[in-house]
């Protein structure tokens, strides 16, 4: 489905991003991992190449426009194309509105929303030239329904959904599709630290009565990045076990 495609995934040294990278690599894509720390990037790339997959990695911060432009330029020169961009890097800094520090608001909006914009802007110049491309943005169901204690995160993810629609409209004439994926509660190293009671209480609210796996998100990304989804753009696809409908 994505064989021989060049796919860049941000925040892919671990968690959902890494699961996407592994899934795409397994389908024969060349995956390029971008994440903050060089050693984490190297380790993730090594895991994939040891399994015989085609992978490369670059350390970078999605908020740093100049640095990202430089990285994308290097990738384009090295691989000759950028077919798929998956904006997955994201952070949380939870707190009630009454108590939320402005710095926590700013940090989450910067990484999640501005980072997605920056990577989209820098990569779209290559995709426009080559007259094709797929951009996938990892949002969250929180961006659709809001969440107490996550005003900054919810706003950033809601913003990503609106950004995705604008991207889809602006770039459609160049054969570039943009879609958002809104995962629900997904089991990752981050959520593994939750107490079993807490997980159970979440699961109760989910019609499919379990947390999702990172590969559930990766499978949806694979479909949306492939030609099977060639008539789908500007949409937000929930991967949440039916949590919100």
């Amino acid at each position: 489905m994505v064989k021989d495609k060049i796919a860049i995934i941000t925040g892919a040294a671990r968690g959902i991003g890494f699961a996407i990278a592994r899934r795409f690599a397994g389908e024969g894509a060349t995956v390029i991992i971008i994440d903050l720390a060089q050693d984490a990037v190297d380790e993730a790339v090594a895991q994939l190449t040891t399994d015989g997959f085609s992978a490369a990695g670059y350390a970078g911060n999605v908020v740093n426009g100049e640095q990202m432009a430089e990285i994308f330029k290097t990738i384009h020169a090295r691989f000759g194309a950028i077919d798929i961009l998956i904006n997955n890097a994201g952070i949380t800094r939870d707190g009630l509105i009454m108590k939320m520090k402005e710095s926590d608001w700013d940090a989450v909006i910067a990484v999640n929303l501005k980072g997605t914009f920056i990577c989209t802007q820098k990569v779209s110049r290559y995709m426009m030239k080559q007259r094709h491309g797929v951009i996938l943005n990892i949002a969250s169901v929180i961006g659709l329904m809001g969440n107490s204690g996550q005003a900054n995160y919810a706003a950033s993810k809601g913003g990503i959904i609106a950004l995705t629609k604008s991207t889809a409209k602006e770039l459609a004439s160049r054969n570039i599709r943009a879609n958002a994926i809104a995962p629900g509660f997904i089991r990752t190293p981050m959520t593994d630290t939750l107490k079993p009671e807490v997980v159970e209480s979440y699961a109760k609210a989910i019609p499919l009565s379990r947390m999702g796996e990172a590969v559930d998100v990766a499978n949806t990304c694979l479909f949306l990045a492939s030609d099977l989804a060639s008539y789908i753009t500007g949409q937000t696809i929930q991967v949440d076990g039916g949590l919100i409908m």
Partner: protein
Amino acid sequence: MDIEQKVKEIIIEELGVEASEVTLEANFIEDLGADSLDTVELIMKFEEEFEIDIADEEAEKLTTVGKAVDYLTSKVG
């Protein structure tokens, strides 16, 4: 190669138009059928080919072939 010739060649290539259409008076959008993304791409191409930076305020004024030739001549020539 002189700048006017190079500019015209870039326009022909980027917009996929005939050389005969690319007169100095031709407006990119009205006469050469460019859309707003095409004009952005065209400016990016000028920047690349002539190794210069074109500020957004300047780029907005470059609506015709002649204006682009004049501007680029003043910057590079």
